[in-house]
């Protein structure tokens, strides 16, 4: 890095002036302006002495002076070189043009020569000065690109142990040797400051974000640039007190915007990965638990129903065993539900869809009901030509089973329940209508959430608020829709719409 730094003459603090005369910084700065002129004069004086003592003619000494003028132009610029050339012409005239030691010119030819010298000196110094400036600019530009590259390398490699905002601000400040850097992140609405910034810099950085344009404040020598992703502003950057071109400031702002975005997406990715792992673990635990529960439960149930079937018990015994039987069955259903939910949560879960008739699946769901009196409450209405829906038979039957079960649980006992299948070209819709408890509008979305139970249903038997969330998960996996309509007089309507086989998404 040190090797890359070019010498910057303007910055040189002439400390010898302080050492010799004890001058103040301001006075030294004023005096420093005179240094090139003094040096030029000295160089002209040496040349004059040399040429005079070597007895050089007008032409030779003219070339000697030209060399001095060019060197001055290269080193201190055009004005110092101009001054030097004028002094040089004066010296040529005085020391080398007859009549000697006067400023008069006897031969007009010499006048031409002096004029040509001055002209040449001016042109040459102008050109060489310009070349010098270009070279310095090129070096500065290369230097800037190197710093930009260095910054990009540092800030695009995320350091997980540090907050990206403050890390980026401090890296930019260090590499570009700025007094302070303020980074405003609009996404998290936080500001990161590195170095000692002017008091209003944070405020003005935020303003730059809202105005969405680059501004340069010459009083504080500060750039305010919005950070943009595409054309959308996502924050702002303030670069305080440093040598910085407009191009550089904009480039730096783009770089910071990208680095911030990169850090954000990296963080998001980490979060998603962590959530996925947690989900996997949860599913595995739930799955294992449900399995471990199911085996003993099924034995308890076999035994209790066996005891009941064998008979020969007193009324109390029969009643107690019936209670064990009923509760074992209920626990078993819950374990099955949990197991089903865990399976659906698995990220690798994909329904095996095939063209099926929803009426068949609805029939299967009704038939799996425990009691004949429940089964008899259902009336199925199907069109003459029912279109097949794309469905995973097991999953949709289990979803329908859940809705059918709810229809029995939350309706007036004994009231009829209508199931209607209607189809269009795009989708087949199955609706289950029952009479009874209306669902409040506020609950209609929420009943599909996991573990949500509508007010008034918490104390009803059988249910932990899992069923409808499973239904929704299953229907979503089929690219279908599920919704509920409810009114006190017309009853509650659950609808499931599934894409038809002709409309494979």
């Amino acid at each position: 890095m040190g090797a890359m730094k070019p010498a910057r003459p303007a910055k040189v603090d002439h400390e010898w002036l302080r050492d010799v005369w004890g001058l103040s910084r301001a006075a030294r700065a004023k005096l420093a302006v005179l240094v090139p002129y003094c040096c030029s004069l000295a160089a002209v004086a040496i040349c004059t002495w040399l040429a005079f003592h070597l007895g050089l003619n007008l032409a030779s000494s003219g070339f000697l002076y030209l060399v001095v003028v060019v060197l001055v132009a290269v080193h201190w610029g055009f004005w110092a070189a101009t001054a030097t050339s004028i002094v040089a012409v004066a010296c040529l005239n005085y020391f080398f043009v007859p009549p000697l030691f006067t400023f008069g010119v006897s031969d007009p030819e010499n006048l031409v020569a002096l004029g040509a010298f001055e002209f040449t000196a001016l042109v040459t110094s102008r050109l060489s000065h310009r070349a010098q400036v270009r070279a310095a600019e090129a070096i500065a530009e290369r230097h800037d690109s190197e710093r930009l590259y260095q910054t990009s390398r540092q800030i695009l490699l995320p350091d997980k142990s540090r907050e990206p905002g403050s890390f980026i601000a401090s890296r930019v400040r260090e590499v570009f040797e700025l007094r302070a850097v303020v980074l405003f992140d609009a996404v998290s609405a936080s500001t990161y400051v590195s170095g000692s910034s002017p008091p209003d810099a944070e405020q003005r950085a935020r303003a730059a974000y809202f105005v969405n344009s680059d501004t340069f404040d010459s009083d504080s020598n500060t750039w305010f640039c919005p950070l943009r992703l595409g054309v959308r502003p996502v924050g702002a950057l303030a670069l305080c007190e440093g040598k910085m071109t407009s191009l550089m400031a904009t480039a730096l702002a783009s770089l910071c915007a990208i680095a911030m975005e990169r850090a954000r997406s990296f963080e998001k990715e980490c979060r998603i990965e962590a959530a996925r792992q947690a989900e996997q673990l949860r599913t595995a635990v739930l799955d294992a638990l449900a399995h471990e529960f199911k085996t003993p439960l099924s034995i308890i149930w076999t035994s209790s129903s066996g005891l009941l079937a064998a008979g020969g018990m007193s009324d109390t015994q029969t009643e107690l065993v019936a209670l064990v039987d009923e509760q074992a069955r209920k626990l078993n259903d819950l374990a099955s539900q949990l197991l089903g939910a865990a399976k659906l949560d698995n990220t690798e879960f994909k329904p095996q869809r095939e063209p099926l008739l929803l009426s068949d699946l609805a029939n299967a769901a009704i038939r799996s009901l425990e009691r004949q009196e429940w089964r008899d409450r259902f009336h199925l209405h199907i069109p003459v030509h029912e279109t097949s829906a794309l469905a995973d038979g097991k999953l949709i039957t289990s979803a329908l089973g859940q809705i059918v079960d709810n229809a029995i649980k939350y309706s007036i006992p004994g009231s009829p329940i209508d199931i209607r299948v209607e189809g269009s070209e795009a989708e087949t819709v199955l609706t289950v209508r029952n009479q009874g408890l209306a669902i409040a509008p506020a609950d209609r979305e929420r009943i599909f959430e996991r573990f949500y139970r509508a007010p008034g249903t918490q104390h009803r038997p059988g249910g932990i608020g899992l069923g409808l969330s499973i239904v929704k998960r299953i229907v979503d996996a089929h690219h279908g829709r599920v919704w509920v309509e409810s009114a006190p007089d017309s009853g509650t309507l659950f609808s499931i719409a599934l894409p038809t086989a002709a409309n494979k998404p």
Partner: protein
Amino acid sequence: MMTTSQGNILIVDDDPKFRRALHSTLHTLGFEIMESWNGEEAIKEVKNRRFDVVLLDINMPGMGGVETCRALRRFSPGLQILILTVRESEDDKIEALDAGADDYITKPFSIPELVARLKAAVRRARTGPPETNKAIVVGNIELDPERRTVRKKQEFLHLTPKQFDLLHYLMAHAGLPITHARLLHAVWGPEYGHELEYLRTYIHQLREKLEDDPASPQYLLTEAWLGYRFSEPE
């Protein structure tokens, strides 16, 4: 408590606690019970003794339920095989039915449900396969294979030859689940097996003619994602 035997049952399950619960219950209810803890043992038992029904768990270590079912079916065609499945293993269930199992029951089950299935199976085991030319009567439906006629409440129904064959096969196995593949093999021919659309169309047509309410069938029941069952009235 012991009366004449309701039937000889072999329980094949790897879980001893489950076997014990079933054994005591079914024994009390009048069945003769033997136990095996895996497929190999079960095959040995069946070779040595005559059973009416084998109650076969489908998920067992070693020789699985499906393999055992296939082996049992090879040397004991008249034996009734009732498989025990869990709700999550539908594919195994179809495989076992195609491998020769007669019926299935899903764990956990209530004892009355199991007993009803066992009694039906014992009856089938003892009466043997129905005579092919004898008329079959199930509920209100009467099918005469010789004359190729079907009557519902004494009224003749007009069926196409394919519809008749399909109904004949289902009624000959009344009460039992028949997989899609088996139906297609039996009615359409051995080269068929995946043409579910055929079945769906024909079953739909049969329901229109046979059922009081085709939307809620009483006889021609769909066994979801498995096949069909001609239901015996309860």
